[in-house]
């Protein structure tokens, strides 16, 4: 088993390993195996297409948490120029599970804010597995208010299992930090586009996700509680996570049907992690569309529409 592949990706992993092996053999000998490699590559593509055409909501939830999935800093690296990371909430600490700062998107100055998970174990711990404490939300709010002052549109990237359930987080007002962000974001006089790039875990996600346009990557999920959490409460065992994922409708398609997600950004074959650069290209194009569209609205109209969107009843919003 390759830990960098999910169980349903294993046949793809095996095939890829075989191709890699042949390639190495090919370098050492005179035998021409190019045809064989080409054949196997085609097979790998059709196998991936096959597997990914039939993912359950639970499979998708696992792709959203894939160990190789691109994170906020990967997107910043691939899509933006001139990024200045800004640190700290000016009150208590710098929470590294949320990153943010000023950057340029093809020349246009913007504020970028996103959850950040770690790749290797030490990095994961440093980033607290993408679970912010109150200081993370307060840092995000500080940057958002700064963006409003300097008329920078805000682009947020959501990827968190949820807000951190810890003793210190409770002592420092986790609930208040989230609630306050929701309130202020509802009236920020600058365009906000939020993209769920991985896991959209509950209030911990929404706290940087009150927006004018909600985008979701094809295999991203967004829900009120994790499938495991929902299962352990309603089914009394986390083993029913697949059923819970199905029942809650956590996928991008479902959110678009409900009128909550404005746009689903297609991922490269096999998921964003199979081709980060291609993913960044399509997401960047989508964000530029959104910014162009929102940029046409006078700010009062923008805020009015956001408010209407937030408070509408029974339209899914």
């Amino acid at each position, binding site marked *: 088993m390759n830990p960098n592949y999910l169980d349903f990706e294993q046949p793809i992993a095996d095939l890829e390993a075989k191709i890699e092996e042949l390639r190495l053999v090919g370098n050492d000998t005179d035998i021409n195996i190019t045809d064989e490699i080409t054949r196997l590559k085609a097979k790998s593509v059709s196998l991936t297409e096959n597997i990914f055409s039939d993912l359950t909501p639970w499979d998708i939830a696992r792709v959203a948490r894939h160990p190789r999935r691109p994170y906020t800093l990967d997107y910043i690296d691939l899509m933006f120029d001139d990024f200045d990371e800004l640190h700290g909430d000016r009150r208590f600490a710098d929470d590294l599970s949320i990153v943010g700062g000023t950057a340029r998107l093809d020349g246009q100055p913007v504020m970028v804010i996103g959850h950040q998970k770690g790749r290797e174990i030490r990095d994961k711990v440093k980033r607290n597995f993408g679970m912010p404490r109150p200081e993370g939300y307060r840092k995000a709010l500080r940057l958002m208010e700064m963006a409003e002052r300097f008329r920078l549109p805000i682009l947020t990237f959501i990827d968190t299992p949820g*807000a*951190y*359930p*810890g*003793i210190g*987080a*409770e*002592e*420092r*007002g*986790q*609930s*208040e930090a*989230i*609630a*306050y962000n*929701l*309130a*202020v*974001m*509802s*009236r920020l006089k600058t365009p906000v586009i939020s993209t769920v790039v991985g896991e959209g875990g*509950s*209030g911990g996600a*929404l*706290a940087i996700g*009150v927006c004018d346009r909600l985008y979701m990557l094809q295999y991203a999920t*967004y*829900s*009120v*509680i994790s499938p495991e959490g*929902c299962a352990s*409460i*309603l*089914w*009394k065992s986390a083993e029913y996570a697949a*059923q*819970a994922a199905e*029942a*809650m*409708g*956590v996928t991008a398609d479902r*959110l678009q049907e*409900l009128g*909550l997600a404005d746009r689903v950004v297609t991922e490269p074959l096999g998921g964003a992690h199979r081709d980060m650069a291609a993913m960044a290209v399509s997401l960047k194009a989508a964000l530029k569309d959104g910014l162009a569209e929102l940029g046409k609205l006078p700010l009062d109209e923008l805020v009015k529409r956001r*408010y209407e969107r*937030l*408070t509408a*009843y*029974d339209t*899914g*919003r």
Partner: protein
Amino acid sequence: MSNWLDKIMPSMIRSESKQRTSVPEGLWKKCPKCGAFLYRPELEKNLDVCPKCEHHLRLTARRRLDIFLDPEGRQEIAADLEPVDRLKFKDSKRYKDRLAQNQKATGEKDALVVMRGKTLGIPLVACAFEFNFLGGSMGQVVGEKFVRAANIALEERIPLVCFSASGGARMQEAILSLMQMAKTAAVLEKLKQAGVPYISVLTDPVFGGVSASLAMLGDLNIAEPYALIGFAGPRVIEQTVREKLPEGFQRSEFLLEHGAIDMILHRHELRERIACVLAKFTGQPKPAHEEAPHYEESQVPVTRD
């Protein structure tokens, strides 16, 4: 449902509630904190505060409003709003059936009751969560009723008071419940900008999506004594940090000490203290002092909007 409640209830209450007693249901009630057997009519006269240990027992939404509002001139808001199972959610039971069952058990259509009325003569809009309705969880109807309450407060420039008691967002409405957090926070920001007072009263228990939205956004956040209040439930935290939680963790007194709430008020004082503070915020004279706690069930009919 019971398992869901277990998660947010402190272990002490949990274990005691499992002990079987031979006391007949109805006339006597056992205090969940000190275990004293309390004569129900006496308990009710004392506003469901245990006379032995001062523990504040949970109230239904209607009784909460009954205690808080003056008897005259009450009008219920959006009483007909009913939940819709848009997601066709089903776990071990259908959400539709759970709704029907909870409606029957509580006599409420959903988990929030809203009334316009007066408290010691101060006109206001008051909301109360019904904890017995799916754990006071917030879904689309709760969010919408809260917004309608806030809109009346905004239009008439009268204060909004909300008594929360909730396990959080309602899982059976999934992402739609999550959005109620943003919705209620947005309308409260309108009140704030307009200078319309909002008092959030946190009563046992308040967690998750309700705590992380409308309950923590009061101009004043007030809690009843010893209420359990937090973002994550104590069990979840215990499992995450793998250490024993400190004594009194997430109780009102803990929140006061950490600066999350303005004050803790005894149930007997709530009506008068809130009326007095609102009178100051709205430029009205200090309301007359009320001797005995107001407890008699209102005989005046409530009108509906």
